[in-house]
């Protein structure tokens, strides 16, 4: 296997593990509480690529000042982040059972004061890019070489604040800032296209001064290549537009927005495990 192939296979391996853990958490959370599996699964490949390939991090030192940062701006999909952090060794998988429990480490939306490895508290949509720009700006001023990655939802792009930060970041010269947009074409109330279409999305970001890259957000080779390009870019912040499928990897959840926020039954969980174990993630 070539070195590149090795990278791809490794990231894919972890994406599969992350998906299994997402459905585990979203089943274990129970019918009284509901987590958000759909948007967690659509982001699994991207988050796996970041935590198991691209990001410079040290799970033993979550507060390491020179670490790369990741902000899950679409905070409701936190099971994908928790699964990545646990698999990367930030905390034990025993904590999965605390999802959405009072005083649990795994809150219903990422809480940087409660969960080791979470770099920014989110939940109210639209905040992540501004915070990411602030962190990236600090790195520039302090002449540090760490990078900031921000994952946004496509529905989330309807928040005006996203565009305020999108306008400011190129002006601030934030070449160390990368935005990844999880374009799963669904939001809470249904289809983004029907509620408030975003296209031409690439042109929008480009016209704001961003380096833009369009990829299939489930194709690991494309994800890694795009992240490599983002790091190489010397002049502009980078926006990666990732086409994805909500619920990706579990056939009966794919493109079905009833899984935006819903708990898996035991049977659904078992079926989902089978699908994930046989299907692979690409």
């Amino acid at each position, binding site marked *: 296997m070539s070195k590149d192939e090795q990278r791809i296979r490794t990231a894919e391996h972890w994406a599969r593990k992350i998906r299994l853990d997402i459905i585990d958490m979203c089943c274990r959370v129970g019918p009284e509480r509901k987590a958000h599996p759909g948007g967690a699964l659509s982001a699994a490949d991207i988050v796996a690529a970041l935590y198991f390939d691209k990001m410079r991090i040290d799970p033993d030192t979550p507060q390491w000042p020179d670490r790369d940062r990741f902000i899950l701006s679409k905070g409701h999909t936190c099971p994908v982040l928790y699964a990545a952090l646990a698999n990367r060794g930030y905390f034990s998988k025993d904590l999965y059972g605390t999802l959405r429990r009072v005083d*649990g480490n795994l809150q219903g*939306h990422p809480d940087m004061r409660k969960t080791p490895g979470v770099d920014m508290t989110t939940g109210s949509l639209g905040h992540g890019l501004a915070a990411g720009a602030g962190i990236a700006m600090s790195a520039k001023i302090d002449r540090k070489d760490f990078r900031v990655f921000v994952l946004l939802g496509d529905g989330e792009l309807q928040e005006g604040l996203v565009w305020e930060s999108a306008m400011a970041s190129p002006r601030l010269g934030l070449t160390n800032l990368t935005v990844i947009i999880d374009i799963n074409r669904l*939001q809470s109330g249904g289809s983004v296209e029907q*509620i408030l279409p975003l296209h031409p999305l690439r042109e929008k970001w480009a016209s704001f001064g961003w380096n833009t890259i369009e990829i299939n957000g489930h194709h690991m080779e494309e994800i890694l290549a795009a992240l490599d390009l983002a790091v190489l870019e010397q002049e502009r912040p980078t926006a990666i537009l990732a086409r994805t499928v909500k619920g990706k990897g579990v056939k009966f959840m794919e493109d079905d927005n009833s899984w935006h926020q819903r708990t898996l039954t035991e049977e659904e969980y078992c079926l989902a495990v089978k699908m994930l174990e046989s299907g692979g993630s690409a």
Partner: protein
Amino acid sequence: MKNPRVELKTVYGEVLVELGADNPDIFVVEADLMKASGSKPFLENYPDRHINVGVAEQNLVGIAAGIAAAGGIPFACTMANFMAKRACDQVAMSVAYNMFNVKLVGCYAGLTQEKNGGTHISFMDIGVMRSMPGMTVLVPGDSEEFRQAVRAASVFQGPVYIRMPKLLQGSLPGKTYEFEIGPCYQYGNGNDLTVIATGLATDIALDSLQVLEEAGIAARVLHVPTIKPLDTESVIRCARETRACITIEDHATVGGLGGLIAETLTAACPVPLARIGMQDAFGLTADLEFQLEHFGITASHVAAEAIRLLDGRGQNE
């Protein structure tokens, strides 16, 4: 308190459809949360007058203000948390400043946001909204009152905020009135203590009457569904007729009913006062009952505070 059972989104959907049939000026504006607000029946009946602006609360309120500027009566709904915090400037400048006829509905309000947790629980919407000059602020105590509040808001001229928890009791026990904007409603006649309550806390206050009686304290409950303009006359009268007051709400006492009553009584009729509610804290990731217990929004806490305020001495003793 019996677990609240009626989902207000069902009520909201029904009443909007009725209003839409009677009045072609009624508009409904949403920000991707129709599943929480329940306005889908209105969309099905009057698609031309239903607008979903996407996940964009500032735009939601701004567009509602524009609709009102052109003569319409928009009902704009999002989670109370985002209405009060994200769209605060739009509420102030575009709606309140112009005294526009916009109806703001904050859904999943207070602790009924439950397991969405601290980032989503609205503990300051009453405070934000009542600080807006000219805003009428309604905090219904049961689902009937919520229905009547939405109806009343539709014919009221001027900006209105309606607090909409996820669930409320169908009907408060022993109710003898039909809700109108303005008055407070009194339950019982005890002369030791007035428990002043709003929203879902009124049901808890009513439960406390029994506990208080067992402790030898004769109390009354003053239910405040109109936070603004406050029926100060009733509040001051009750304060004068009893020896102490306790406020109770599922909201921060700072800015909330507690703050309001403290402001009112300090100026007009200072009496011993305790304020029950969230104290300088964000909400938790937990179900309603747990959070009520955690923040002391309970009948037993009312009794404990009453005994403290009255030095253990009820009139009946």
